[in-house]
């Protein structure tokens, strides 16, 4: 059975190995160059001190910029390809061409046949995804040290170990789709749609709730708050706060009791603490600090003074995932996708082994309605 699995899988396996080797070569050559540029430039120094003003990929050469835009998405495609080209045809092609009738009537139960095939192809799929993800993560490492938020969805999913979970899941989705649809092309299409849907759902509705978020209080300042005027009066708003390498969910202005103050209370506080701003000379409706008839420097000083005088009454409550949650989140996401894959595989093996609910052979359907011979 191992021989048969290998014999049926070897063309794809060799092609994948060749592609992976070419990919590794590209990664290693350009990755070494990237590291060289990184070490030679002054970026490495400022990154170590956290003092890079606007360090971006543009500091590097043109081909690094192109690669940095392509490698991550390429890694995202790997699980999809595994699901569509390894998972979906594994059962669907046998059912479609009828060769299952040959192999399921040899002296081996179909459960064992399927388990061996799934185990071999599935483990190769996990290894390929893991290797590709490791190469990509290594390539990006210097860039990630700069300004990249590692929790950003497009970064989080393109680094670390989650690709292994995605690959296992995509493979299982393909396998199950093939067992249900019994046709290769529809199974591939269903795998494509289901996998992307599952990834979107997970990214937006599940990942944020995997681990309890941390909370931190920040003093109000230019980085996280602003003042806006309206016909009803001047009010205070929170802007998205930044915490280095953390995943910030929200920032809310709260009072010392932890409650969000009412608009009237804020207005009263501004009146009391920042009379010059509250009376709004030269602050047209909708403008923030620094856009006024007064000079920007004067307004900025005014704003800073106002914020520090408010700090005894108000602060910003930030809800976020700290950087220490990065690997636990990676492990959880990988584990959940792999567990879902195991459930799908188990259900498919059970369904195939049960031997019921098989549709008639295409040959029988083609013979048309039952007719009696004369």
């Amino acid at each position, binding site marked *: 059975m191992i021989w048969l699995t290998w014999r049926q899988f070897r063309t794809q396996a060799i092609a994948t190995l060749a592609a992976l080797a070419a990919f590794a070569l590209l990664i290693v050559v350009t990755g070494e160059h990237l590291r060289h540029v990184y070490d030679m430039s002054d970026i490495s120094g400022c990154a170590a001190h956290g003092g890079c003003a606007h360090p971006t990929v543009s500091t590097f050469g043109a081909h690094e910029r192109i690669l940095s835009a392509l490698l991550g998405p390429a890694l995202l495609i790997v699980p999809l390809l595994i699901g569509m080209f390894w998972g979906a045809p594994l059962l669907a092609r046998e059912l479609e061409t*009828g060769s299952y009738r040959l192999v399921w009537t040899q*002296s081996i139960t179909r459960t064992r046949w399927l388990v061996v095939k799934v185990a071999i192809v599935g483990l190769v799929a996990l290894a390929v995804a893991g290797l590709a993800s490791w190469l990509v993560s290594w390539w990006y490492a210097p860039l990630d040290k700069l300004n990249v938020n590692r929790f950003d969805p497009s970064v989080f999913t393109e680094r670390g170990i989650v690709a292994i979970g995605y690959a296992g899941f995509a493979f299982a989705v393909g396998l199950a789709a093939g067992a249900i649809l019994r046709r290769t092309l529809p199974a591939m299409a269903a795998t494509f749609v289901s996998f992307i849907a599952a990834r979107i759902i997970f990214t937006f509705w599940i990942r944020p709730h995997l681990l309890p978020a941390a909370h931190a209080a920040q003093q109000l300042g230019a980085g996280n708050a602003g003042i806006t005027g309206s016909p009803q009066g001047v009010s205070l708003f929170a802007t998205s706060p930044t915490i280095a390498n953390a995943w910030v969910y929200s920032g809310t202005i709260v009072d010392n009791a932890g409650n969000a103050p009412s608009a009237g209370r804020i207005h009263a506080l501004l009146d009391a603490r920042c009379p010059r701003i509250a009376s709004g000379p030269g602050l047209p409706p909708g403008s923030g600090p620094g856009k006024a008839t007064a000079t920007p420097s004067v307004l900025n000083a005014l704003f800073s003074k106002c914020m520090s005088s408010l700090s005894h009454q108000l602060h910003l409550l930030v809800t976020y995932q700290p950087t220490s949650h990065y690997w636990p989140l990676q492990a959880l996401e990988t584990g959940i996708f792999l567990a879902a894959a195991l459930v799908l595989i188990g259900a498919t093996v059970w369904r195939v082994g049960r031997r019921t609910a098989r549709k008639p052979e295409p040959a029988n359907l083609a013979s048309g309605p039952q007719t009696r011979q004369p």
Partner: protein
Amino acid sequence: MTAALATRGLGKRYGRRWALSGCTLEVPAGHVAGLVGPNGAGKTTLLQLAVGLIEPSAGSIAVLGEEVAATPAQLARVGFVAQDTPLYPSLSVADHLRLGAALNPSWDQALAEARIARLGLDRAQRAGTLSGGQCAQLALTLAIAKRPELLVLDEPVASLDPLARREFLQALMEFTAEHTVSVLLSSHLVADLERVCDYLILLAEGHVQLSGEVDELLASHRRLSGPRRDISRLPSSQQVIEETHTDRQSTLLIRTEEPIIDPAWMVEEVSLEDIVLAHMGRDWTHEPDAVPRVGR
């Protein structure tokens, strides 16, 4: 001796359609049994039930006295050549033999090699490029080199040209002559079966219409022709299968175990094909043992 195939009230339903229902049958071991019936009669369903590709929706089935396809050992006792003889197109002839050797503990490599050599098949040729006749022969080789006790073949010659058909059946007969094996072979053409079978099962509209040894069937069926008469006045031992009447003459195909003594009849022997066609044309719904069919 254990029956090669024994079924009791066997039925298989696809959705709301019964492909096979109320099938009660016993095929003794040691026969080359032909399963005949029109397209859509349930032949493929019955054979796939017998090799365990599908599970029954009703009733029970035992093959060689055992539950079907429950264990590798049971699977090893039954060889199967499926309809249209599926193979792996990208695998070579040698790969297929290796597949057989890898998946069957009882594999007879010498037998397989000898057959491939005699057929003149190129071992390196991919199965996808073989002719229909060669595919069928390779599939048969896989099934018999497994050294099964029961060989099941589903319309193996249906898509073959007359020469390939003859060669295939020849190969099958040689194998059955040399080895003790029971064979269950389906076809919608009686002529194919007449040459190789000594047992016949007629399936139509999902029911078994007729089953028995070919010799007995031939011995018990007669065509009578004579002056027109009412068939209700025939002896009760004579079962009318088919009747045609003109103004003056009646022609009957009857089944009887007793000699026909009425001198008014001209008695003729009938061919297996005539018997089969007569039974197929019979309105089975009035049979006492017929199970009502669930509508399509």
